[in-house]
């Protein structure tokens, strides 16, 4: 009894998350994917992903090349693993950027009210009116296709979604009596936003972040597929798919392996997000 009372909010959420099998599956798969990406160099050196060898082109999986080789005789396993490094970096990086700016805009808008709200949210509407992929495409074309610019472009295109969702959660918090009480205690705007409003919407933010990461990884891949992302021969999942397209009929495995990794990433993030949403919802407390 005494012990249970001392449980922190985090432990409580973790306890509930553990009960959800799909969420735990998602968490484990995601952790494995992140680990393989982090330690890709230790598992198989990056050199192998670039090393061409015409003698062994389009070979099926073997002990030496467990995913087989691509059209230039490069090791597909190395390319998928090192490609994952970039894909995940783009996904997480862009989400972090979009979350940060979306959060700032939502905070300003919900704290300062009507006039700023109208101005900034209409601006968000304008950005959101352009399809996200198209928007990112436009930004990348303008800035030039590099990894960094790809992250900036995708993050920019995603800001309105974050701003809107966080804003609507914050609006239900800003009028709460404990915010008024904080004002009465002498707290200023910054403190109220950071200490009182944000923690109360963190649940929404966490769930949105996991879901967005999955989407943004796919968008990054589609931009790379179109040739606007990471430039060849640097491996990246979308770029791998693009390369594999030519050999779809003869060597479909070239497409299958990066495809499986993408599906797994996206699936695990979504399962985790769903589980987190349930675990963070106080109404489902049991």
């Amino acid at each position: 009894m005494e012990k249970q009372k001392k449980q922190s909010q985090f432990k409580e959420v973790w306890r509930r998350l553990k009960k959800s099998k799909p969420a735990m599956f998602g968490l484990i798969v995601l952790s494995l994917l992140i680990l393989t990406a982090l330690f890709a160099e230790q598992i198989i050196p990056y050199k192998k992903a670039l090393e061409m060898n015409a003698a062994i082109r389009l070979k099926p999986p073997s002990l030496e090349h467990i995913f087989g080789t691509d059209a230039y005789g490069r090791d597909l396993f190395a390319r998928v693993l090192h490609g994952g490094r970039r894909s995940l970096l783009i996904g997480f990086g862009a989400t972090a950027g979009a979350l940060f700016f979306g959060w700032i805009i939502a905070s300003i808008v919900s704290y300062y009210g009507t006039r700023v709200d109208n101005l900034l949210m209409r601006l968000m509407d304008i950005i959101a009116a352009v399809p996200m992929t198209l928007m990112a495409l436009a930004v990348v074309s303008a800035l030039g296709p590099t990894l960094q610019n790809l992250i900036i472009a995708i993050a920019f295109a995603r800001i309105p979604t974050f701003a809107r969702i966080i804003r609507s959660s914050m609006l239900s918090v800003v009028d709460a009596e404990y915010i008024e009480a904080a004002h009465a205690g002498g707290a200023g705007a910054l403190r109220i936003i950071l200490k009182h409003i944000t923690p109360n919407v963190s649940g929404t933010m966490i769930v949105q972040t996991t879901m967005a990461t999955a989407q943004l990884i796919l968008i990054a891949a589609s931009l790379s597929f179109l040739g606007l992302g990471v430039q060849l021969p640097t491996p990246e999942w979308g770029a791998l798919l693009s390369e594999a397209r030519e050999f779809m009929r003869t060597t479909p495995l070239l497409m299958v392996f990066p495809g499986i990794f993408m599906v797994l990433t996206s699936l695990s993030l979504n399962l985790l997000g769903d589980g987190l949403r349930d675990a963070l919802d106080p109404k489902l407390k049991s």
Partner: protein
Amino acid sequence: MNEYLLEVEDLKIDYQTDLETVHAVNGISFTLEKGQTFGIVGETGAGKTTTALALLRLLPERTGKLRQGTIRFDGKDLLKQSLHDMQSLRGKRMAMIFQDPMTSLNPVMRVEDQIAEALMLHNTDGKGKAEIMARTDEVLELVGILPERKRDYPHQFSGGMKQRVVIAMALACEPELLIADEPTTALDVTIQAQVLSMIRELRDRLGMSMIMITHDLGIIAQTCDKVAVMYAGEFVESGTLEDIFTGEEHHPYTQGLFGSIPNLAVKTDRLNPIGGMVPDPTKLPEGCYFSPRCPHCMDICRQVHPQDVKRGTHTIKCHLFSEVTHG
């Protein structure tokens, strides 16, 4: 030089929306001496909470409009202070206990952090973290909460305990003025008595001035030195506690309020409420605001707004007592 801690003069507050103007407070004046308690009693919608919020300058920015009047706190005109100066006053020198303890605590903050917040914000003499935490323990002890519960979250507390936490938050910096806005309304009767006696004891021990806002005449009788009866944004009657409770002459509204308290000595089947409703604050009646419900209503009451009639410390805003009608 300032014998009064707080002087409010002719305060008028409207809530302005696109559709209508709500006249929430219509020209109230009062003074509060150091160490005294001033009670404001009135029914729901009389403008009590609006008055309290105005004192801290916490009226909703978009709609709440302070039309006229002055608020002087310790000689300083509060309405001329910058936002920054107000922030350093709030919580430090004037604090507020909010109505509903269930909603006035941040659900995701530990209780100790919420109490420590005011201390940290007003940490002008550079206290260390340990000192602040020690003070937090002290305040918690003051309101009767065991220190081992300070790391709990609000949902782990009962209603009465939450109200204690809210009071601890207000008391953390030992304010000179404590505004208690219906501090016991959300609590049940036994807890009410505990919380009230605690507030009284703390006030006496810390030598605070207090504004007690309530709709319960019993609470007023137990805590206040001076009382004002508020109706439709006005003080219809004000004076010392004795003036209101034992005085000979009363505003008909005050009579009605006292009349609606059931008398334990006499057997009554029905309670004796004041007939009618509080007037719509967007369309206040001409003349006296109480005239539509007043049992002693005269012709003049429907046309001319009554002036304050002073009898020593006792003030009544009613034509029944003004010289005009008495000749």
